[in-house]
């Protein structure tokens, strides 16, 4: 961790219009959960569709995409990353610091609002709200690492990330069974299932495998991002 890199990254992430987009996630979750609470439908079904499908399935990956690419892709794009790189700083320190900021942001803007939404809809019963929150924290961290890597390796990180989150996880993952094994969302769900009371949630990936994959993807993505950053080539305007 480097506090200066962290400070610059936080200001870059929150200082622009992006902060409004980040705030849209909690606002949406709270609005939906308040509406759900006053509806007469089955509370468990409501909690699963709001927290599972909307939260873990859609908002967590989108937020992960915004913060994961947001902590680095913009700086690479406009060239200001040169002020971080032209310093005697180990590259892995820059990457891990930026990752920490992205993970923190995904917890504050996605996992925490999910906890509040879960409590509003379902209370503390069966540890369901807590389960989804911990699942969202795990998934948010993995998404942040993966999308940070995308932000370093491609100029089209947002498109590539949307492709993964929407096409692979949501579309393919919902219809092809095997694809679920390779889905951060499903790994997050396994964590949620383990934390919540028995039988409240169902997950397709075994907990041990899910944890190994979460940690593996996050570490490999971070290592690759650091390696790529160490050999970052500047493009000239000529």
């Amino acid at each position, binding site marked *: 961790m480097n506090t200066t890199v962290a400070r610059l990254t936080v200001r870059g992430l929150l200082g622009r219009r992006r902060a409004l987009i980040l705030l849209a996630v909690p606002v949406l979750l709270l609005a939906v959960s308040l509406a759900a609470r006053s509806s007469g439908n089955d509370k468990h079904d409501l909690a699963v569709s709001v927290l599972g499908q909307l939260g873990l399935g859609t908002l967590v990956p989108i937020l992960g995409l915004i913060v994961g690419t947001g902590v680095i892709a913009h700086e690479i794009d406009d060239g200001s990353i040169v*002020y971080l790189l032209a*310093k005697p700083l180990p590259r892995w320190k820059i990457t891990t610091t930026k990752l920490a900021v992205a993970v923190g942001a995904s917890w504050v803007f996605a996992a925490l609002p999910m906890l509040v939404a879960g409590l509003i809809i379902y209370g503390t019963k069966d540890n369901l709200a807590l389960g989804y929150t911990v699942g969202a924290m795990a998934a948010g961290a993995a998404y942040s690492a993966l999308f940070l890597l995308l932000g370093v390796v491609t100029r089209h990180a947002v498109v590539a990330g949307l492709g993964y989150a929407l096409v692979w996880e949501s579309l393919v993952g919902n219809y092809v069974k095997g694809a679920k094994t390779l889905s951060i969302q499903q790994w997050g769900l396994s964590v949620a299932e383990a934390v919540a009371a028995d039988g409240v949630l169902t997950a397709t990936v075994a907990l041990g495998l899910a944890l190994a994959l979460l940690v593996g993807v996050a570490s490999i993505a971070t290592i690759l991002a650091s390696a790529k950053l160490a050999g970052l080539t500047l493009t*000239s305007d000529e």
Partner: protein
Amino acid sequence: MAVITIDKVSRWFGNVVAVNDVSMRIGPGITGLLGPNGAGKSTLIHMMSGFLAPSAGAVTLDDAPIWRNQEVYRQIGLVPERESMYDYLTGWEFVLANAQLHGLADPGAAAKRALGLVEMEYAQDRHTGTYSKGMKQRVKMASALVHDPAVLLLDEPFNGMDPRQRLQLMELLRRFGADGRTVLFSSHILEEVEQLARHIEVVVAGRHAASGDFREIRRLMTDRPHRYLVRSSDDRRLAAALIADGSTAGIELDWQERALRIQAINFQGFTTLLPKVAREAGIRLYTVSPADESLESVFSYLVSS
């Protein structure tokens, strides 16, 4: 002594060769890297600042490789060509952050000193996004100087500056050169380089075209054979009168253009000779235009010599 050595360096991008077998040594004092746009100046500076790997050859700072070696930044200050620089920070915050990133013992004092050097204290509390081009350039300078580096690399620092800002920056660079620092800046404008650098390295089309004292290079540039295109009321008679003088090397009658193509050896001699000869022979001159005065042709002459 901080010396950057470029040893038989080539850099290609796919099929395009941007830098072709260049060797040069940049030592203390001010060096101007001169060349037309697209000659490979930025590519060279990117390799010298560790942001591009040479495809062949080696770029070193006092024998230490620069590529993938972040320790060199303790000695190198880089002023990049691009302007973007965290425009949500104030000038002070930006320079201070650079000092902190260097891990300096007293970043506050270093930032204050650097901003003082470029005389930007008066605007240090404004956001850099609101700065003019010249102000941005100076704050970029301050960020590059904050750790008191032995080497300063500047990519096209005078681009877009007004004459007053240009003079200020030149004064500043002169001081650094006089301090014994190694200062290298790139430019495509001969006059700019001439005013500032005693030592010049010329690159043209990726090749190292000339190296040395600016006076020597200036002389090479003015002493080269000059070509002119001349139209007059009687081309043949004018040609006959001109060839008799020693300052003319060759004359061609161009039938398609209906003009004379003249090659002069002695630039000064020819420019006084032509009007004199024409007046004495009663010939009217309609067109006298230098055929190869563009910077590119001056440079390509240097390459061929």
